[in-house]
């Protein structure tokens, strides 16, 4: 059994309305000094030992991320 994290973030050149909404809100709440915010998704998976890295990448690319507008990274938490 392994724990896997897949991080999915909007591509840098793609508009990120979510991150912008947070970035704009912060100064209004009195938090200064945050220059940029980007918001993405984090998936935590618990997988059988039968699931190899290739499969994980495929899961991320096919289902978890929309590769037209998002990038992703996959990593196992404990080997």
């Amino acid at each position: 059994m392994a724990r896997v994290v897949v991080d999915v973030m909007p591509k840098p050149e793609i508009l990120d309305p979510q991150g912008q909404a947070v970035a704009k809100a912060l100064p209004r709440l009195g938090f200064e000094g945050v220059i940029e915010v980007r918001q993405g998704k984090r998936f935590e998976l618990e997988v059988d030992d039968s699931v190899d890295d290739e499969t994980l990448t495929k899961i991320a690319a096919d289902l978890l991320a929309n590769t037209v507008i998002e990038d992703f990274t996959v990593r196992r938490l404990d080997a």
Partner: protein
Amino acid sequence: MTTDSVKHAEATPDTAQPYKELGLKDDEYQRIREILGRRPTDAELAMYSVMWSEHCSYKSSKVHLAYFGKTTTEQMRSKMLAGIGENAGVVDIGDGWAVTFKVESHNHPSYVEPYQGAATGVGGIVRDIMAMGARPLAVMDSLRFGPADAPDTRRVLPGVVAGVGGYGNCLGLPNIGGEVVFDSTYLGNPLVNALCVGAMRVEDLHLAHASGTGNKIILFGARTGLDGIGGVSVLASDTFSGDETTAGRKKLPSVQVGDPFTEKVLIECCLELFREGIVVGIQDLGGAGLSCATSELASAGDGGMHVNLDRVPLRAKGMTPAEILSSESQERMCAVVKPSDVDAFMKVCAKWDVTATEIGEVTDTGRLVITWHDEVVVDVPPRTVAHEGPVYNRPVQRPVEQDSLQQPIELPRPSTSDLRDLVLRMVGSHNLSSRGWVTDQYDRYVRGGTVLAQPSDSGMIRIDEESGRGVSLSVDCNGRYCKLDPYAGAQLALAEAYRNVAVSGATPVAVTNCLNFGSPEDPGVMWQFEQAVRGLADGCVTLGIPVTGGNVSFYNQTGTTAILPTPVVGVLGVIDDVRRRIPTGIGAEAGETLLLLGN
């Protein structure tokens, strides 16, 4: 790095330019050189190439669309306040109210990225309506997909529906109707046509033009980023080859991400600006972004325009003038404002937290001049960009197989048991099943003025709360009929939309359309197109209501196989009191008499 300024272009007349990659033909590029008397700069080339594209210039359809104008009589025109040539058609519906409506396609983007493609399609048509000075009041969507059980439809359909809903719901516009059709020709090329309707007081009608020397050009709304500049990045990598910041731009996806919240705020901000009476002219930024907005405003105005690109607020680093001019970043508008009103304008924008920047002014030079880092990068006669693009008389040829399509076939008289089977098959077919899965994702109640929505034949909204005056709308098309006979098929679409509006109790008054066809370079497709336009226009004459605007979408095909010819027709009707609407359906009370009209 050197900027490709006008001076630089004059000094380097023989520089090879990637005009083909930008979609321009040899003779089109030659014409640009003739117009300018030199080679275009990168920025000018970017501008001409997007503005002379099929999508923006209507170069293949113009000669045919003229038939609408030719056939519209004075009588038909009598209620029309703005027609073909404006952002959207406007009709007078009485009591001092004007209503504006239009359909637009977002087919290709919705195939690439269904959610964002459909969402930004809704966003674009809503800005068109806003640019007329109206408050957007409702949306509709006419959708076509491949077979419902095809794997790709399972990718495209949920995304498109979520996108239409996600954007429209968040804008607070009720969705009051539309269509969902399945046919295998749409598998690799779904159709996403969005309609928006808005209303204003007659005196508040705004037209897109930049007039009055000295008036300021203000860009407001979202920042400009690298969205949707796909093709134009060829220029960036050529000019700055090896430059870190621009490397890899060739691979930019030409996908735009919508921000409905920004658009909602933009709507409220625009309406407040209109109320304050401080807008001389206004234009939305859609396809072709700033290229389109600046050249169209200047071209429709009475002078010239000077724009300073350094002032455009950017979202990405290292953008070139060509990229800034072609960016299709969403949720932006461009306004012309008297110098004395600029402060008031900025104040309204600040109230709504909308970024607004003065980027230039109206001049009396008759030219559109754009500067960047103190150098002139664009110096063109605006009409040559916006209104005097190429016009094609493409070959038209009735397809040979058209005869066989129309061969009458003898159908045996069905037996009772066949009928039972047939009814069951029809009830179970995807084209006749409930649309609830789609319409349940759309807010039909917001604004509190929706009188009819799904599953009614037409959507109806109340415009005036006191008097109850309202409008009814329907969009329809049957592509299979149009394939069999595009002339009659277009008329059937018109007749269906007209009937749907009429049976709700409203009087039909105006027509809009979205003509979705295959490649205009295919003479058979051009024949379908010509027939459909003629059928629609002639039908309008018979019914006595004008076409007030529309949109053409060509190149809808997979390989060489075109979609079914799909001229989507929208009809607008007026009802003086929505309380007298006639709901769809029978059997409200026992003992009702059922009558069949017509033969």
